[in-house]
């Protein structure tokens, strides 16, 4: 489904180039459930942003369903994010001025669905993540776990094929983190391809494949031990 070939990313800090990713080769199959692990600053988020078509690699090729993302226009990559990729962030990234329901509807607004369809589907999604009672709440009126559920509902509302989660439990306590992971694992059981970043071995253990990154290189790739 996804194929990365010799992906490099270099940031320019003033006069010097700072290389972050040094040639990443990675293949993600349909239905994969991958945890990316590595030390802070090793380039995990950078890799996720490239996977999510938010950022272009400096070098290398990235194929999404056989389409070379590096050659797509900004609008084409935007549409890819809209239709085929769902994002979950550590900091939830909900729009503070919109209610939970409006936040979930937003990707469908940009996809151009009519309002009644958006409402119906967003309500369904929120009910599915257990927030039927909280639809009219603003993000500031929700707990962290609830906010992350809203974010998950938003990520899935356009029926993506790929779910990317950058430390989805990083800002949650262990119990709510576990609940969120239950939800994500359930999605995998449904057939969704999932790539997540985590520092938490407990979280990683629930996935099917762990990719370790160190200083911008993949050092290990395989099923979780035990």
């Amino acid at each position, binding site marked *: 489904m996804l194929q990365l070939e010799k992906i490099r990313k270099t940031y320019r800090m003033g006069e010097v180039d700072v290389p972050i990713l040094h040639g990443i080769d990675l293949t993600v199959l349909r239905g994969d459930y991958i945890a990316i692990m590595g030390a802070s600053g090793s380039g995990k988020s950078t890799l996720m942003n490239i996977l999510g078509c938010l950022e272009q690699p400096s070098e290398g090729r990235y194929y999404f369903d056989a389409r070379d993302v590096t050659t797509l226009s900004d609008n084409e990559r*935007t549409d890819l994010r809209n*239709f085929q990729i769902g994002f979950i962030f550590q900091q939830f*990234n909900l729009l503070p001025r919109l209610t939970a329901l409006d936040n979930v509807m937003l990707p469908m607004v*940009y996809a*151009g669905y009519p309002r009644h369809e958006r409402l119906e589907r967003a309500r369904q999604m929120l009910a*599915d993540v257990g927030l039927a009672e909280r639809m009219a709440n603003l993000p500031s009126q929700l707990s962290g776990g609830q906010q992350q559920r809203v974010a998950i509902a938003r990520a*899935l509302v356009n*029926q993506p094929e790929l779910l990317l989660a950058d430390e989805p439990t990083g800002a949650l306590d262990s119990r709510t983190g576990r609940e969120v992971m239950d939800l994500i694992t359930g999605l995998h059981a*449904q057939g969704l391809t999932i790539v997540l970043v985590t520092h938490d071995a407990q979280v990683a253990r629930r996935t*099917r494949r762990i990719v370790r990154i160190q200083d911008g290189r993949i050092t290990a790739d395989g099923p979780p031990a035990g």
Partner: protein
Amino acid sequence: MTVHPYPAPSPSPLSRPGAGEPRRARSDRRRADLAETIPLAWESLLSNRLRSVLTMLGVIIGIGAVITMVTIGRGAQTQTESQLKSLGSNLLFVQSGVATTGSPVSQGAGSASTLVWEDARAIAASSPAVADVAPVLNRRVQVVFAERNTSTQVVGTTPSYVPVRDFLPLTGRFFNQAEVERAARVAVLGQTVVDALGLTPSSALKQTIRIQGEPFSVIGTMEFKGVNSFRDMDDQVFIPLTTMATRIVGVNSIAGIAVDSISASATRPDQMDAAQYQITNLLRLRHGIVPPRQDDFLIRNQADLVSASNSVAGIFTALLGGSAAISLIVGGIGIMNIMLVSVTERTREIGIRRAIGARSSDILWQFLIESVVLSLCGGLLGIALGVIASQSLNQVFGWKGGIAVDAVILSLLFCLGIGVFFGAYPARKAARLDPITALRSD
């Protein structure tokens, strides 16, 4: 590694509505509804009410000023028009002197008189479209009664002045033809002069006043006529043309008594053109003017005067409106400023929207619409302000000029333009933000 079918048949915690449907084709994709963003823009304005109002203030004042100014201008214009109409709609003015682009207000003072009384008599005798003709010779001189004196316009004319100008005596009478023929020292006073000399319409009769030192007996006072755009009609003293020429002005041309102008009335309003044509031909003949030579007189009719005064009022209105429009531009700059601040403040929001599928054009529209909503709200408040202000001005001045509807509509369009023009740069700036940079900012 297990690869799961998609969608999976297993019972799921998340229902996936429409998962079985064919995926919307990329080309089918409709863009985000513009109507969608209007409530959002509205909400973002409400969320910072004070700032929004302060931002709109420039536009509010600008639009309010434009509407008030235009209404005032129009009111003045209507006023002038109705005054001109009161002069009589079948009036023609023949002025001596070569046609210049000067204003019709000037009586050609200082320029050599080319018209004589005999011209007026000839017009009366041989122009069938002309009803009455009154020659006029003016001077501003000192008029004295007892201890009081005033500087006023002394008008030497003939009894036809009354029907031509439709200007009647209030007390006493106007002078007659016999008094003109013997150059009698009789005077008819306008009401302003009556006042200035400390008299009343009735007490003025039979008094002796001095005009440039010459004694004149007052035989009548004229009705109130008010101020028209040319002069205070009541600030005049009427004496026989002959007396004026011999005693006050003291210059006669070989051809007879020189006059400044000749007022003529057409028999009917629809005879104006005919009258003008007959007078022109007659005077050319009498003055020996053949086409390459320019006319030494100038004929203006009521319509000319109205349009001249309208064009003056139009310039006045345009000037007022223009200066108000400048304040609108200033208002627009205020909007741009706040929109730039707003883009900076909401960088993260822009990043989030981009991450979940907003195209840069969606962001562009969002900010553009916000700026247009801002300027249109300002415009509507400005219109309310302008309407209230001009209504009360109309009341104060007793003008009948209504609200300038076209100014209201134009203002709204202008606001739309301002919103787009001054919102374009901030919106473009927002649309061009790199998604990941925007997302990382806080």
